């Protein structure tokens, strides 16, 4: 009687879950804990040194000029990437929702960039945004501008420290706005026509219909998109590697890239771990409220 709860289906369920529970416990949470431990150690050469130094690595990091630039870059990138992707994605979704002819065709075109990896996107946009020079001639966007007679608009793009990370954000927006469009399109299709009709009957203009009816109804989708894009943005690394590298004066550097370099080139394993912990905290600031929100909602249902 006593061990009844371990009998039958419960036992099988438990056994079936156990391998993945153990794997996740070790390979996800175990390694997170390990990284946290290393970030407070003195491991700053190849040979591990686990002397506890408290938060020294973190203080050093925040005083590091390169890390300060990285955080600023990350903030600019995230802001541009989120607003850009959401705005363009929403616009495309609204346009496609107009039951245009060839909707399937356009939908596919807009969605395609998402199927590429950031590495491919990075390489392509590196070429497109190649600054060129008067002597060797222009390529990509600058060549296009030249041909259109808009030569004064030519720019150094990602090689210009004043543009830097913003150029990378353009590439990221190009890649992910189609995905946001797909999410919004699904959301729009889920809104019954009657609601819009009712608003129109009440005398709302088309703008007001979107502002006061559609957008509030799409809020869960916006939230989901922000979560997904936000964590991609905070962890961005591959796009930087393929497209620009850290750039002149670290104008396109991000914490993830710095983490790689400081760990495996400067042998500052503890400092690298500290950057990883900071990235994790930033992502969890974004994700945890969402998780709490959705768990609570599930409980209500």
């Amino acid at each position, binding site marked *: 009687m006593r061990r009844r709860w371990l009998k039958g289906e419960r036992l099988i369920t438990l056994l079936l879950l156990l391998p993945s529970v153990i794997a996740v416990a070790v390979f996800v949470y175990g390694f997170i804990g390990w990284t946290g431990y290393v970030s407070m150690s003195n491991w700053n050469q190849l040979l591990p040194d686990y002397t506890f130094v408290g938060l020294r690595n973190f203080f050093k990091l925040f005083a590091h000029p390169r890390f300060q630039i990285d955080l600023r870059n990350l903030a600019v990138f995230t802001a541009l990437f989120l607003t850009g992707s959401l705005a363009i994605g929403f616009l495309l979704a609204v346009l496609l929702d107009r039951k245009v002819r060839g909707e399937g065709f356009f939908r596919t075109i807009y969605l395609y960039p998402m199927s590429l990896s950031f590495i491919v996107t990075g390489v392509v946009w590196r070429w497109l945004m190649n600054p060129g020079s*008067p*002597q060797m001639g222009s390529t990509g966007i600058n060549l296009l501008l030249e041909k259109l007679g808009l030569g004064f608009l030519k720019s150094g793009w990602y090689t210009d420290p004043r543009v830097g990370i913003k150029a990378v954000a353009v590439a990221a927006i190009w890649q992910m706005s189609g995905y946001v469009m797909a999410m919004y399109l699904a959301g729009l299709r889920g809104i019954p026509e009657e609601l819009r009709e009712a608003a129109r009957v009440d005398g709302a203009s088309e703008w007001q219909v979107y502002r006061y009816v559609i957008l509030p109804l799409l809020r869960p989708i916006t939230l989901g998109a922000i979560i997904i894009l936000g964590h991609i943005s905070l962890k961005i690394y591959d796009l930087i590697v393929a497209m620009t590298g850290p750039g002149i004066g670290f104008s396109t550097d991000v914490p993830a890239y710095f983490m790689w370099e400081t760990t495996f080139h400067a042998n500052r394993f503890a400092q690298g771990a500290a950057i990883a912990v900071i990235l994790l905290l930033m992502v969890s600031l974004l994700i945890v409220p969402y998780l709490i929100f959705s768990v609570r909602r599930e409980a209500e249902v």
Partner: protein
Amino acid sequence: MWRKSYLVGLLVVVLFSWLSWGQAGYEYVVPAATTLEAIAQETLGDAAYAPAIMRATNAKSLADPAYLKIRTLDMAIPAGAKLWVPERAWAEAFVAFWDPNRPEDLFGGGKLVVGSWWTAGGEAEGLNALFEIYDEYYPDVQIVNATIAGGAGFVFRAVIKPRLIAGDPPDTFQLHAGLEVEGYSPETYLTPLDKLFEIMGWTEVLPKDLLDLLLYKGHFWGVPVNIHRANVLWYDKAIFEKYGLTPPENWDEFFAICEKLKAEGVVPFVMGNAGGWEAAHLFETILISTLGAEGYKGLWTGETPWSSEGVTEALEILKKILDYVNPDYAALSWDGAGEYLIAHKGAMMIMGDWTNGWFMAKGYEDYGWAPVPGTRGIFDALSDTFCLPKRAPNPINALGWLMVCGSKEGQIAFNTRKGSIPARTDLTAEEKAQFNAYLQSCMDDFARDAIVPSVIHGAAAIESWVTDFKDAVNLFLATKDVAGTQRALVEAAEAALAAMGQ
């Protein structure tokens, strides 16, 4: 006379048969039943060499069943058995490095995993030439070419470190000569090669400056295969002839040329910085010009303060150069920048002498070279070495590899293809003639000049310092803040010297 040439001819035939028959040594048919130790005593003069004969014979027997398979060291050797007695140096090295707790190393065969970042063009050809030579000597061993692409080993080094910590290293891997070895914690992860240097006589044939560079904590950790020079100014002869210019000897001349060419619409000076290290490479050569050989060397030992006048001056020069560079330098790697010269659109560039090999591969012949302004008589050197990790899975196979790397034969085959000069300085005039014009002039300079270690290529400083140095220069490209950058350099030096003093 006739008799003499006959003897020489015989000697050549014997030598040649050694080479073509694999590992240097000779065949030995046992006259009467005996033991390995007795044979070792008789042929090599010491019973202690028995394991070396066992290994060499077993390696042979893998390809040729006529050789005896020796199962154990104390196995009775029957009369008429065919054995292979290795050359004395090899036997000595084997006994010095063989761990008696690893009897599996007495049987030959297996793999040789060689880690390097030589994947492209001449460097890959050079590596293959070394493989071919190794294959001739040790046909029983299967070579695994474990390369990872990425300039200056940028990616390779990041991959090899976790493998070392995890105890899963390749059998041997590429490493810059100098303080870069500190980044691998060699006392824990690498085997000191002092004994091998002694047995092979390399301390006699390698230049003293290089030997000093190779010593870390009193030991040799890598066998050098080549020397590259970092402080070379390359220029397009067509442009120089058109405007009646001569290569600049100092920075004033350099900037006069820049001014003139800029007015003509030519890019006076080209560089790339896509890899993030190229500008720091340039800055390193400027430091040499303003501080001189001793002053520059002192920067890395704490004898020259980083707050000194020469460093300020070097930063000012770098700042001024930025007024004359190609506008797209942030998007180009050094070879991309070289395209300006090939197209006769850019006049000068400063880069290491691997540029020479790349120009040749591009079929571009209209280039000239000179030392970086103000560095005549100084040779900013870097060298690639191969090391022996402590936990190498096939250490004896790796030992053979290191011997090929250190041999004249290996160095000539490798360097003529890679476009660098041999680390050994005992080449005959005929052997030197196998190298191209640039490399011959480079060999002469190397023998004559003061040699200083390159920092950005791992020779002069520990890796964390190199990273800070590189980052400071990279930031300078955007800020152009001389005082602030010099302060950052001073701080980096203080931190690094403190860490090295530990």
